């Protein structure tokens, strides 16, 4: 029993790291624009698919995983420059534009990569670590590591790096930021691109474990959004832990309820947390209107 429990905890942590990695992208975009990027899940799938195509062209796994997010980011920067700057100021319209974008991206994914799910061949060949009967695959381990790296990186970025501080400043008080010489559209664009970079990175890490299809973005996006909310949107890096908590809950819940109700329980926990702490479970505690 205890072994099962620990195994479930591990599974939950892996699942949660996936959610969290997608979730940080949401928070980062929200940090600068105040909007939710509904195409985040599609960005993750797009990142994974690009990496798959690159490995298909005989590029080593490692390079594919690095190049794919960069290519995607460039694409998003262009997209933002050409179209989205027009609505960057208005979170509501930006949200609608991302909803539309997710529909269009889905079709493009279907067109270029086909209807069937595809997986990224893993450099570890599905090898498994066996610690006293507990099983943990190397790929899974990599996902958890990726989530932690993202956490540390973002923590550093937002507290130390000038661009991170500027991004926070833009969303906190846009007009003062402008008066301080910051061009909000620039930082909104940067945040958007950065969010998609994180999404693509998440996609690349997830692809070896779970085969993705052009249609997978919706579910990933939903769980990522939940993780971001769980953690509080004002602290982007904490979405990683928001995701892990969500994943662990989902995983453990399976023990007690039929798995059809797994999500119901996870959502109810989320609702309770939101009612107790409206600004997010892990948030800094400062009340602010989202």
């Amino acid at each position: 029993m205890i072994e099962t429990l620990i195994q479930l905890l591990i599974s939950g942590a892996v699942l949660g790291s996936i959610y969290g990695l997608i979730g940080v992208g949401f928070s980062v975009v929200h940090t600068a624009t105040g909007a939710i990027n509904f195409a985040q899940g599609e960005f993750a799938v797009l990142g994974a698919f690009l990496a798959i195509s690159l490995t298909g062209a005989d590029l080593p796994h490692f390079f594919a995983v690095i190049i794919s997010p960069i290519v995607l980011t460039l694409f998003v920067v262009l997209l933002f420059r050409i179209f989205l700057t027009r609505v960057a100021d208005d979170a509501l319209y930006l949200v609608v534009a991302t909803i539309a974008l997710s529909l269009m991206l889905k079709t493009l994914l279907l067109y270029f990569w086909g209807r069937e799910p595809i997986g990224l061949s893993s450099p570890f060949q599905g090898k498994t670590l066996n610690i006293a009967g507990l099983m943990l695959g190397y790929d899974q381990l990599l996902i958890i590591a990726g989530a932690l790296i993202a956490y540390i990186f973002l923590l550093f970025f937002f507290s130390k790096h000038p661009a991170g501080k500027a991004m926070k400043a833009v969303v906190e008080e846009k007009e003062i930021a402008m008066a301080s010489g910051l061009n909000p559209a620039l930082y909104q664009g940067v945040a958007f691109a950065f969010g998609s970079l994180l999404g693509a990175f998440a996609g690349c890490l997830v692809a070896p474990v779970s085969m993705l299809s052009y249609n997978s973005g919706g579910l990933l996006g939903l769980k990522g959004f939940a993780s971001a909310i769980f953690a509080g949107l004002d602290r982007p890096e904490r979405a990683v832990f928001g995701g892990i908590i969500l994943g662990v809950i989902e995983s453990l819940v399976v023990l007690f309820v039929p798995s059809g109700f797994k999500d119901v329980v996870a959502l109810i926990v989320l609702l309770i947390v939101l009612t107790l702490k409206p600004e997010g479970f892990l948030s800094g505690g400062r009340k602010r209107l989202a």
Partner: protein
Amino acid sequence: MNKKHRFILTISILILVLLLSLTSCAKKETNKTEERKPEVYKIGVILSLTGAGSPLGIPERNALEMLADEINGKGGIDGIKLELIIEDDQTDPAKASQAARKLIEKDKVIALIGSSVSPCSLAIKEIVARYGIPWMCPSAANAITEGDIKWVFRTAPKDAVAVEALLNYISKNTKYKRLAILHDSNAFGQSGADEIKKRSVDFNVEIVSIEKYETNAPDLSSQLTKIKQSNPDAIIVWGTNPGPAIAAKNMKQLGLNIQYFGSHGIANKKFIELAGDAAEGVIFPAGKILVADQLDDGDPVKEYMLEFASKYEKRFKEKPVTFTAHTYDALNILVESIKKAKSIEPEKLREAIESTKDYIGLDGTIDYSKEDHDGIGIDDLVIVKIENGKWIKLQ
């Protein structure tokens, strides 16, 4: 004063709209198909080309287009060409029913084919029953051929048939008694699991745990960990890609070394590609088309299937899957029936379809009768095992 105003206003609007209803009712619908020979035979096709059902819908569409081109290439049916009007229901039943209405009422098609997933087909069923035109259905839910079956003809094996084939194999050819079920929460997975549960008693097996997962879930190890705890002899995974492939990989990674049984939803190369090593030894029911080259030479469908497979591969650069067969047969039967009925009058066409006997198609041998509008029986399925990345026919 104020209240009076509101009352008057509401009443006037009511009268206005009631007027409308009277005027439009006055125009009686004339929905009779003319008995003259049409210029083309219009066939309405509704498939799930986007959304969760697209892995089914797209090959189904491919098969139809290929067949229609072939027939038209030979000059059509007695000189009259076929025209397919294809609509995408986006795997949403509400859109499927609108598409059905459009095809019947606006495009005046003579018959319908579709849709890919059961909820969409069930939505179409209501419409077809109302307007009365022949409908060939390629999806699996039992409910499609229950109740009023006058207009519906199915070419796919229904859930019950596939489940029966698998359980039959398990109880007769293996010693597994304690089974666990892991299934997709979508219509395909849910009906499959319900059917297994229902029939388990007949086949003398015990279902020790049932777990489900959301379509596109990225990881299934928590469900499998729970299944492991119930200590089953074997597991049945009922779903379409990628879920079953993720399950196979997760099982390997969790060290859950029990026999893996699948559904006909994994009867495609994709599953082997996705699951890799983990696909080895997996056993599942499938249409004969999957292992056409391994059929006995005496099997009447062998030649036909091999020929189809090579044509399909040539045109679409991929192997045909079980679903391609469903719509291919549907259109073929329809064409045969038009020839036979020498009419496109719905009732006559329907009777012609109903009288289909010993039709040899890609799904197997199809027979319809007044009581039975399910063409495919348990004999038309084979049990297949994956060995060295290849399908091996077991029965």
